């Protein structure tokens, strides 16, 4: 690394808006292109210092791409948080021999019609 060139950029992310995990994942993703140092909770912000591994990298381009990546990763984090429970249910269902989502249909007797299907016509 050439010590003379402006070889580092510092990016800040609002910790209220972005998850730390998202910033970490973005840094990991950029691992082939730059070294990253992450400082969490600097006045409610997450600070990231990126040092490109090759000095031919355009720093402003890198910044934009990194910000987009954090945005993507944060979106993924919010999806993962929201869907974790249903994901576990689905995996359990996929490998179960019986329906875990529709108990009445799975084990109810059609003659008793516990779901009221036979009489549910709208008139």
């Amino acid at each position, binding site marked *: 690394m050439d010590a003379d060139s402006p070889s580092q950029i510092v990016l800040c992310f609002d910790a209220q808006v972005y998850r730390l995990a998202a910033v970490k994942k973005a840094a990991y993703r950029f691992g082939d292109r730059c070294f990253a140092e992450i400082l969490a909770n600097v006045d409610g912000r997450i600070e990231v210092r990126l040092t490109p591994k090759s000095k031919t990298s355009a720093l402003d381009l890198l910044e934009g791409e990194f910000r987009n990546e954090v945005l993507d990763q944060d979106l993924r984090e919010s999806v993962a948080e929201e869907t974790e429970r*249903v994901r576990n249910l689905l995996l359990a*269902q996929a490998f179960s021999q019986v329906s875990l*989502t529709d108990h009445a249909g799975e084990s109810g007797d059609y003659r008793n019609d516990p779901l009221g299907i036979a009489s549910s016509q709208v008139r």
Partner: protein
Amino acid sequence: MLPTLPLLNDRFLGAAAFRARVGTGYSLLPLRLIALDALRYVLTNFAGEHVVLPKAIARQFIRHELDSNSAVYDELKSKHFLLDDDSTVALDLLAVKYRTKQSLLANFTSLFMFVVTLRCDHSCPYCQVSRQSVDRHAYDMTIAAADRAIDFMFHSPSPAIKVEFQGGESLLNFELIRHIVTRVNDRNVLEGRDIRFVIATNLMCLSDEILSFCKEHDVFISTSLDGPRTLHNQNRPRPGGDSYEVAVAGIGRSREALGADRVAALMTTTEASLSQPVEIVDEYVRQGFNSIFLRPLSPYGFAVKTGLVTGYSIEQWLDFYRRSLEYIVELNYRGIPFREDYSSLILRKILTPYPTGYVDLQSPAGIGISGIVFNYDGDIYASDEARMLAESGDRRFRLGNLHTDSFEEVMSSDNLIDILSETMTECVPMCVDCGF
């Protein structure tokens, strides 16, 4: 005058009456997303559904800001990215689709490759195998090893089993093939598996005796065809320089004896192939094949060890692949039905709920649990590549030996389990988030 909407008879409820629960309970179903380009994301789920959305719309969707009356809302709901109080059956459907995708895992190992000899008359520089000259019988699999391999194989619970004979040149040890086929069939009277035999061969020692045996036992033939004569003979040198003539004549004889659907060919792309995509495809069409499997050089075995083969870059390979595929599409437009098998596999993965069983594209990898290799010396390898690697000194993917290890020991060995868990894209950092 305004057009009046035709009305239902008043004994029926209007559509709005059934929309009451739409939008309430709006929640996301498991999904992955990845940028397709600057403007769009592709969203996928573990059942293999996908949808391409402008980034702004995708963000709206994930923040629960999508209008429940919009077409995109319906699309996401139809493809099971979104759930609301209108319906819960999406959960059942997703689970079944996921189970279907994984169904081959449950069947366990179904492909068993028997390396009946390492001897070969060809001297192909790209050969993945460290071949041995024709007279060195020490490199033949013994009957004892073969019998143990058969026992091992029937330990797999898979209802469908494919037995593939490999080499070297497998037909140089035809007597062992005959022994294995006969023994497997005898045993299968009680086992009742769906068994298919394939001989991978360069067709050099094809004989009427072999063909009638194949006919009698419904054995398939798989051979190599790299392209037009000059290219093929350059890629696959043998004494006499007539590998192409041998292959083409053998394909014809085999088809005549066994039927066209019993004979397949595989190609390997060398540096010399890169400039001939059209010629290679044309050769396959000319030889009466309706598909081709475009395969890059494998980075294992003889080729790497010796440096006999000039490699090429991924970009060069992709360019070759693209040009071949374009030409194949053009052929189809001209009314010549022709398939590229690798694309077919990928498209089947993307567009259907079914798995492919193709061991190279699985999570976890198909090594051991989909396909397994019995080497001539009784060593058990996780894949064809694993034995190549072992020939060059790296025995990491050697799972055991037929003479000392049982099916259970091999399949539950730390060695295999470790490899498998490292290949599960469901847990590998970044892979776990990848939309593709």
